[in-house]
């Protein structure tokens, strides 16, 4: 009897699974999938979306037409809020937004009108680690020396609570370094110009930016800086020889669990950089189909070749993996989040 039921169930599954595929294909056939990019044209989020958009239709059952729409505002919060609250929840509209919005939700920043736990995360494009670098003439040659001498190192940052501001203040709080983060620099270009012209001692951003866009600052005749410390557990790269990885260093120095959790929270958004998401309520089979499609699109030879030409190291993550990181970040214990907020406020 039990065997019969098993066979019956297996038979039913065989019958129903192609029906799911057909259902998705039937749904998307002749429709368009609109991707709302939360930034203006030309930025990393826009360029990454437009990198996969031309091949995406090949991997979605029913081959919908892909339309990229830019809706800039609030560091992509406008697009996230709109897609979460006001757009169709049938899988024909998705958002391309900054993962740092999740940190903003965790901190209770006003203006965030979505719940990251309820978004149907589809994929992220990069897995980055934040890092801090200083000028060669800054007076310190290593992070250990910076901590030992307590030399004040002025770093150029964008806004309070943003990545370029979180890194220096967290490193100060946990390791005892003496970074002074000056906020208000309007763009990555301005942040780095201030380092190049010697106005500040250094800067913090993702290591991927240092090793690609800003590689001229670290090698060749224009070399002016060295990497001091990198978040996470480190990477294998010539620029990182002898550079401590924050989590490893924290463990070596016997830092508390809370402090290690803070370092992880700081770096979490980088791990799911440039993220695509569907609003809540989209049928599960369509979410899964889009997760599969993005995974295949990121591995498409055309996309890989273009990414290589652009010196961009794609490290995609499937939506379920993104959802796990978002969940962890949003579940940061309240006392810990209060400490993070306090640090940010103190600046």
């Amino acid at each position, binding site marked *: 009897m039990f065997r019969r039921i098993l066979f019956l169930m297996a038979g039913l599954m065989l019958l129903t699974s192609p029906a799911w595929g057909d259902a998705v294909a039937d749904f998307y056939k002749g429709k368009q999938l609109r991707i709302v990019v939360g930034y203006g*044209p030309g930025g990393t989020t826009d360029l990454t979306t437009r990198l996969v958009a031309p091949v995406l239709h090949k991997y979605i059952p029913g081959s919908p037409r892909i339309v990229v729409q830019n809706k*800039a505002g609030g560091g992509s919060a*406008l697009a996230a809020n709109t897609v979460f609250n006001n757009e169709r929840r049938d899988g024909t509209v998705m958002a391309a937004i900054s993962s740092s919005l999740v940190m903003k939700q965790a901190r209770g920043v006003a203006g965030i009108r979505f719940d990251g736990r309820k978004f149907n995360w589809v994929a992220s494009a990069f897995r980055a680690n934040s890092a801090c670098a200083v000028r060669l003439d800054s007076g310190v040659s290593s992070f250990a020396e910076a901590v030992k001498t307590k030399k004040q190192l002025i770093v150029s940052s964008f806004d309070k609570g943003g990545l370029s501001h979180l890194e220096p203040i967290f490193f100060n709080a946990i390791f005892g370094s003496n970074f002074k983060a000056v906020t208000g620099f309007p763009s990555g*270009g301005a942040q780095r*110009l201030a380092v190049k*012209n010697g106005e500040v001692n250094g800067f913090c951003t993702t290591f991927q930016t240092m090793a690609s866009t800003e590689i*001229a600052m670290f090698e060749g005749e224009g070399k002016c800086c060295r990497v001091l410390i990198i978040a996470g557990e480190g990477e294998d790269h010539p620029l990182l020889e002898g550079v401590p990885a924050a989590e490893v260093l924290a463990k070596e120095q016997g830092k508390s669990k809370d402090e290690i959790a803070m370092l992880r929270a700081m770096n979490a958004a980088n791990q799911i950089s440039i993220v695509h998401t569907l609003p809540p309520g989209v049928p599960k089979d369509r979410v899964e189909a889009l997760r599969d499609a993005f995974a295949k699109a990121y591995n498409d030879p055309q996309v890989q070749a273009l990414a290589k030409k652009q010196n961009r190291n794609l490290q995609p993550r499937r939506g379920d993996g993104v959802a796990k990181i978002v969940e962890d970040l949003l579940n940061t214990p309240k006392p810990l989040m209060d400490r993070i907020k306090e640090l940010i406020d103190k600046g």
Partner: protein
Amino acid sequence: MLEAFITGLLQVFDQTTFLLMVVGIFLGFIVGILPGIGSPGAVALMLPFIFEMDPVQAFAFLLGMYAVTGTTGDITSILFGVPGEVVSTATIIDGHPMAKKGEAGRALGAALMSSLVGAIVGAFSLALAIPIVTPLVLSFKSPEFFSLAILGICFLAALSGDNKLKGVLAGGLGLVLSTVGLDYQENIERYTFGLVHLWEGVGLIAAAVGLFAVPEIVELWVKGSAIAETKVGKLGGVWQGVKDTFIHIGLTVRCSMIGTFFGLVPGVSAALSQWVSYAHAVQSTRDRSGFGKGDVRGVLGPGAANNSGIGAAMIPTVAFGVPGSATTAILLGAFIIQGLQPGPKMLTEHLALTFSFVWLIVISNIITVALCLMFLKHLAKITQVRGSLLIPSLFMLIFLAGFANTGSYFAMATTLVFGVMGVIMVNHGWPRPPLVLGLVLGSLVERNLFISYEIYGLWFLTRPIVMVTFGVALVVIFLPGLQDWMAKRAKLQEEPGA
């Protein structure tokens, strides 16, 4: 270096490269004429098409498009009072009144020829500046940016027309409006009323279009006639405008130099250079009574500054990866797509490519001006079309401008609000340019003041370039008064018995 300079020129004349440049020019022409889309948005939308091109072809396409948007943006500014680009706003002040006087052709001729002169001056300054570009750009830090913004504010009076007090108050309102949005340091919401749409402040293009274009359309509606109040006479011809450029060549070249300088300094808005150039045109003229009412010099100044900045803005982009304008920020994306590394190598290994940019900008402008000159006579005739036929299309254009800028309907509402504000200001004799200048400069002043104080304390005021710029600012404030006083004194001495 000479070899690279010539190689750069030859690269432009490669068959495919030249063809792509022409396609870029064609697209740039349309983008420039349609308000709101703007060169940054248009260049960005073309980025996916350059994936498969080689670097010279890619930049021929993009720079061809970029180089002509400023030039053609002046066309709608003059004909309808609708700025095609942010950098075309100052052209309205004298260009549109010229169109109303029946001199649309002359204004268009002057705008195009001065743009060409500006582009050539700007592009060659890029070539000449390459050996000294590093110390030049690196000498400008936050205090210097702050002092330049203060210098810009000192030009408010020159843009205020007859009523200086109203001008200064309008500038103050612009500065206040520039504080709307998230503050740069603490991320605190200011005057956003809970609207995420306002986090990044008031949209400049939506505000400028509303402020300048809506009152013109309302006037056209009330008047019920064509834009041109008189028929196009011989003086209103295109060639007269071309001749004007050479009659006032000193002013055109000086304004080109101003545009070049502002393009060169990263972080100082290109939108500022057109206002400073306009103010310079006003201040360097003895008889200022015609400005604001259709003086051709008010068209030549901003026209020259717009395009000269294009070549110059490439300098910090190429040498430091620091874009000098919104469009060069997107061109930086094109560098990355092409696997190029902005930095010292662009001035050594890839020097021929860098010089090809210079040539692309010059040649694109020559082609555009030559093509435009052929059609201008016909374009100018639009000003004789009955207003009631134009109004629906103009309304569609300006609200499209608001929408195209961000893709959000909120921008259309911004255009409407500023449109109402513009009508009120016109009816009560309040000058609008100071408000736009305040809006442009507010963030620059605030941001750089904070950074300068954080890093240097009050000592930033003692830096040499800061002190020199403040000195120039004092001259800007007091020189017109001094000139007026001297002129009155000379007149009194000339009049017997006075």
